[in-house]
């Protein structure tokens, strides 16, 4: 991720991923159809289909011919491990950069983290 | 070709409603004359002269309203032309039948009141009860007026102001038809100079001229609309 460009289909994909991560969508559960997503977001169904295709490529969804799209049984695990990989680059590094920019000593940040862990 | 049932029916229903209202109005005027004056002439005969202008309007509306509607609904100009021609060919006799019915109802009324139903000007028919002749006269007249309206309507739709040039042609068509039934055309503003052609009177010639005028008019209208573009803006 080098920029914050988020075409609508990526927003949909992110939405579904978030649902999978917080288990609002479970493995082997059917997701809403392309047309339902298109109607909900008021977008062209081809755009919604693109979001689904992206998720199929990433192994989050799989297609059952003639029935629809389903959440892969291991989707949550796949997403969790991928997010773990990028967690430091996506979350921690920018946080450290921000802390430096506004003059918070890193020791304070670490202290806060330890404090939170204790809860 | 598909029969233009809805186009014809819409025009007939509208004409019938107008006719009913018009008839009531004429009866009211007739009663007024009988009460406040002397009634010894047919009032219907004079009143129905207005209906020619209605016929003209029908022709204008065909091109101005229905042609764009047909094309916008994916019909071709050719399909519209054919349907409009059939519509006019059937609508004109319907309208003349309404004229004849008007005369007959008036006859009943005058007979009840014991008044003479005299005619004020020259016609194909000598008596209002000569139904076939009444029908023919108005048929020839309406065919010409409708087709003249369509021609002038098409002219203005296609060329805006340039449509003025189609007016003399329209008038020519009407004069020809009026000549065929032995009457003269009196136009507003031009009342003092009656336009007329004198044709020898024979029923065959009347019908022939009437039909010829109609066909000539159709041909001219087709020449104007056969590739007419729909206007991007009205007015």
């Amino acid at each position: 991720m080098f920029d914050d460009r988020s075409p609508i289909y990526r927003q949909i994909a992110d939405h579904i991923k978030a649902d999978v991560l917080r288990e609002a969508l479970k493995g082997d559960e059917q997701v809403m159809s392309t047309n339902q997503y298109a109607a909900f977001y008021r977008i062209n169904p081809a755009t919604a289909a693109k979001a689904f295709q992206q998720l199929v490529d990433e192994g989050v969804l799989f297609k059952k011919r003639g029935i629809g799209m389903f959440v892969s049984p291991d989707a949550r695990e796949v997403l969790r491990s991928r997010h773990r990989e990028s967690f430091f680059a996506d979350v921690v590094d920018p946080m450290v950069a921000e802390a430096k920019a506004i003059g918070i000593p890193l020791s304070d940040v670490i202290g806060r983290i330890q404090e939170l862990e204790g809860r | 070709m598909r029969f233009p049932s809805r186009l014809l029916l819409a025009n007939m229903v509208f004409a019938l409603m107008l006719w009913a209202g018009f008839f009531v109005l004429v009866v009211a005027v007739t009663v007024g004359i009988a009460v406040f004056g002397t009634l010894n002439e047919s009032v219907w005969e004079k009143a129905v002269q207005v209906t020619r202008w209605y016929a003209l309007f029908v022709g204008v509306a065909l091109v101005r309203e229905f042609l764009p509607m047909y094309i916008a609904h994916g019909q071709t100009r050719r399909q519209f032309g054919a349907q409009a021609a059939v519509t006019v060919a059937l609508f004109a006799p319907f309208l003349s039948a309404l004229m004849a019915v008007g005369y007959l109802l008036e006859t009943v009324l005058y007979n009840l009141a014991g008044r003479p139903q005299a005619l004020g000007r020259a016609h194909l028919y000598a008596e209002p009860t000569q139904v076939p002749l009444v029908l023919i006269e108005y048929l020839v007249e309406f065919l010409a007026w409708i087709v003249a309206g369509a021609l002038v309507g098409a002219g203005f739709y296609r060329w805006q102001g340039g449509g003025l040039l189609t007016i003399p042609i329209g008038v020519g068509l009407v004069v020809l038809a009026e000549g065929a039934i032995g009457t003269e055309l009196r136009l507003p503003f031009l009342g003092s100079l009656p336009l007329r052609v004198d044709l020898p009177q024979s029923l065959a010639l009347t019908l022939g001229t009437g039909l010829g005028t109609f066909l000539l008019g159709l041909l001219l209208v087709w020449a104007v609309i056969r590739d007419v573009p729909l206007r991007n803006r009205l007015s």
Partner: protein
Amino acid sequence: MRIDVEDLVLRYGDVTALDRLTLSLEGGKIYGLLGRNGSGKTSLLSVLAAFRKESAGTVRIDGQPVFENAGLTRRVSLIRDVGETIDIGTVEDALYFAEWLRPNWDAEYARTLLDTFGLTPKAKVKSMSKGQRSAMGVLVGLAGRAPLTMFDESYLGMDPPSRYAFYDALLADYMAHPRTIILSTHLIEEVSSLFEEVVIIDHGRLVVHEETQTLLSRGTAVTGPAEQVDTFTHGLTVLGAKQLGPTKSAMLYGDLDDARRRKAVEAGLELGPIAMQDLFIHLTGEPK
């Protein structure tokens, strides 16, 4: 329906509205036709719908010429704000003829849409408000279910709730009855998410024909210190730029590869998307 337009010219007297326009649409999609006033949108749609005969060039729909082709034109519908299909007495009268002339007319759907747009069957169309007239036109276009359905600025005068009701109905009906739909509009932000492909014309010529998402990905806004922005954008297609103090924002058009993106980020530049509306404005030039 497949549309192939080649070197299409349309003249109104001395005015050339379409100037050798060439365009192919494969059909079965929702297309957005964008262009400024007088760019030739209405002219193009009018020729596609056989409202007008082309002055030169060829126009084919599903491989056939269009003008006065009865078998083809019955499958094509164009709704313009002139109101050809609706200015025929009352709402009921217009539906009476639409039902009779449109081979795929869905009367039940038309009644549903009357409710959606709050139209009364007995109302006289010519005395309705602009917005209601537009809604009436939209209704006739939707319920006609023509395999090629085109709307030319059909939203004119419709208030936002009615417009969104139209977008929703259009999308739902397109998904239920897939067909080729072309929408011309100025309200780009509102409708662009409905388009699968976008066609932009200007001065009677084709400027862009692209998949919507691809077109959007072509546009990039680069923001940062003016000097860095200038260095980065050197040699690239810059559609426009604006400056606020030391900060400059430039709009780039064209694909940016990952290497370049990385370079931008390293130089402390921010990359962002450009809205369809802005792309359109910059692709079609100066204010008039």
